[in-house]
């Protein structure tokens, strides 16, 4: 310690000492620095390997648990409570793809558009600068908001729509049905398990009491006449007749036949609402990555375009976007990878229901998604379900891997051109 002080004092008093370097000290110093550098290198390698190791441990343990359930039925069947062995995740795969499709269609134009606004249309006056700064600040903040908060937002905005369009109630109101809905009264016929459908004329009247012969429709939309059987008189015996006959005074409740383009406000618990909520989750990610991509386009390209007389829009359309596309696409696909694995917002928006035999059948249908199915299965008491959960995780990982590979492939492909 005193030696160092003495040296410092010597340095300060005699500049000559600087001219005559302490060779021994320099050699020691250099060795010490090299050793530190080596240690740091080893530390970095160790840390890098640790993250890989964690992934490997995860994959091996999941693979070990789930390998016995990785069979075709996992991909083709639906969740089953009674035949656990035969449970599968096909509706969940379809549901996840549908939700993510909606999410991509909503988030990508919005996100890329915002990024273009922020990067290419630079503010020219004070007010525009303030708007820019405000938007930029909000996007940076939104990227850090937990996804379950977006779930609650989606619940109010997309599922209930602030109750502006009324609440959906089971026996009273379907909300505002805009297109694709046909209402019928469904009345039990005399044949067990068979019903007759009578088209609904007055949408306000939710129930119909059949007292006289009337006209209904069959499955193909053809008109059929419906007869009445009065209790006390002999019952028809021919099943075909029984199918077209109802008891006098039978009550019919309303059912809704929905075409695939069925559209209604509010969205209620539908895959559309879930997709739009996920779009909110990934929007900041897409904006920020697109901004980065646009920023990395060389300014000389922009200047050349402007120099040739192109407007800002022409420059964006013909120069900046094509040059930035690989980066934009990579960011977007990685964001989709996040969207497909999100469980929390979906649980809030769609609920935890997993028993659904098909993918979404119309625009307002519910959906089961893979993360929610895994969440449900892993919490069950039966061992089979926990193994199925592990197998489903493997499938989800493979799909994510494919998505990420696609991102890398697109980037390579586009950089070549």
């Amino acid at each position, binding site marked *: 310690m005193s030696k160092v002080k003495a040296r410092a004092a010597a340095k300060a008093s005699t500049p000559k000492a600087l001219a005559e370097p302490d060779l021994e000290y320099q050699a020691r110093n250099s060795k010490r620095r090299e050793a530190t550098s080596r240690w740091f290198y080893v530390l970095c390698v160790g840390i890098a390997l640790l993250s890989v190791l964690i992934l490997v441990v995860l994959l091996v343990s999941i693979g070990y648990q789930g390998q016995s359930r990785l069979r075709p039925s996992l991909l083709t069947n639906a969740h089953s*409570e009674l035949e656990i062995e035969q449970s599968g995740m096909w509706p969940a795969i379809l549901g996840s793809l549908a939700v993510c499709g909606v999410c991509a269609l909503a988030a990508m134009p919005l996100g890329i558009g915002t990024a273009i606004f922020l990067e290419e249309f630079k503010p020219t006056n004070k007010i525009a600068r303030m708007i820019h700064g405000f938007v930029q600040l909000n996007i940076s903040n939104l990227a850090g908001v937990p996804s379950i908060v977006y779930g609650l937002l989606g619940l109010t905005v997309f599922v209930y729509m602030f109750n502006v369009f009324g609440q959906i109630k089971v026996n009273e109101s379907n909300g505002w049905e805009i297109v694709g809905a046909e209402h019928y009264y*469904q009345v*039990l016929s005399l044949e067990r*398990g068979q019903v007759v459908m009578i088209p609904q004329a007055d949408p306000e009247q939710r129930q119909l009491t059949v007292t006289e012969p009337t006209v209904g429709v069959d499955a193909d939309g053809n008109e059929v006449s419906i007869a009445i059987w009065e209790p006390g008189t002999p019952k028809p015996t021919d*099943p075909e007749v029984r199918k077209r006959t109802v008891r006098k005074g039978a009550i019919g409740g309303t059912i809704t036949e929905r075409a695939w383009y069925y559209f209604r406000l509010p969205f209620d618990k539908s895959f559309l609402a879930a997709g739009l909520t996920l779009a909110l989750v990934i929007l900041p990610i897409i904006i920020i990555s697109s901004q980065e991509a646009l920023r990395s386009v060389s300014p000389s390209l922009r200047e050349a375009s402007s120099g040739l007389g192109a407007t800002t829009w022409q420059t964006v359309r013909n120069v900046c976007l094509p040059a930035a596309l690989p980066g934009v696409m990579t960011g977007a696909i990685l964001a989709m990878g996040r969207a497909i694995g999100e469980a929390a917002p979906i649980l809030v928006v769609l609920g935890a*229901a997993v*028993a659904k035999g098909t993918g979404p059948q119309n625009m307002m249908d519910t959906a089961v998604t893979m993360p929610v199915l895994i969440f449900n299965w892993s919490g069950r008491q039966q061992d089979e379900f926990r193994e199925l959960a592990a197998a489903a995780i493997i499938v989800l990982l493979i799909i994510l891997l494919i998505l990420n*590979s696609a991102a890398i*492939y697109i980037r390579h492909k586009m950089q070549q051109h």
Partner: protein
Amino acid sequence: MKRFLGNGFLACLVCLVAVTGCGPKTTTATTDSTTAEATSSDPAGSDSAGSGTAEVSNMSGTIKINGSSTVAPISDAVREKFIKQYPNVTVNVDGAGTGNGFKDFQKKATDISDASRPIKPGELDACRENGVQFIEIPVAYDGLTIVVHPDNDWVKTMTIEQLKKIFVAGSEAKKWSDVDAAWPAEEINIFAPGTGSGTYDYFREVVADGEGESLRNDMNLNEDDNILVQGVAGNKYSIGFFGVAYYEESKDKLKAVEIVNPEDGTAYLPTTENIASNKYAPFSRPLFIYVSTASLPRAEVATFVDFYLENVSELCEKVGYVRLPEEIIAKGRENLDNEAIGTHFVDAEGNKRSGPLAANFKAENLTK
């Protein structure tokens, strides 16, 4: 190398496209086959002068169910069997919890509410305010099992008083010897379901039923019952409780404690027979469905509830619960047929009725 990698990724992409491409085809294929089945079975049905044979129904519609996650597997099982016979009916079963289920039910957002406890007076009031009327139907029993480590050789039976000493806050026993002087002077480790679960609520109701009593707050709480199983199985001086279905799954790792029935003073194990005969009291709880009467005129709801009562005893055993005695199911069916509106578990003054199911589930206890 790059090129090679690129090709690999292309192959992956093609796979993805192929998989998604198959999707619609397979689904249309299955729907085709169901409709084909429906049409082909039609003439068959008419030939046999069908008196309710397994003909595929043309009934359609949507039934919305929400409520207890404990009851959801039963409703899911019924749904699964139901849609085999009625393929056009959509049944949505959500398991957001009994309380959340009743919130939806009050808002008229669901047709049926699943519940792992009877409706509470406050929820009943909310239903009345919104004009929601319902029929209360018990569907199965769930037994709450108290478990200890298999090497635990000092506990075989326990009384409610002993459980109170362990679980109730304030007077809690730190060591086994605090409960019974003959037991070892070792610290008790407690594993219990989370405070949000109906199981915790039910246990607290039975053990800490007095004024101002609550369960102690230094227990290891976890919503994941598998962790509770591991916790108790990993420590000789531990105790825990959860639904009987979880115990059945891990019988080899745990030992169930016989509980002394306060009525007859005999200790009973939570076996299927003891739960069904109500001897395993007070730790067997009934599970319910609440059906909105406004939905019953709809053919699909009426048929589904009918189907539910017909099949629940068999199906609930398949998903790990205990069937109700035949007379209680019959009583539920009677209530459904007579549209006996109201609950049996709240009295006219708005106080909660507690006690065994069979004692309360009587016509004279019905409160609208």
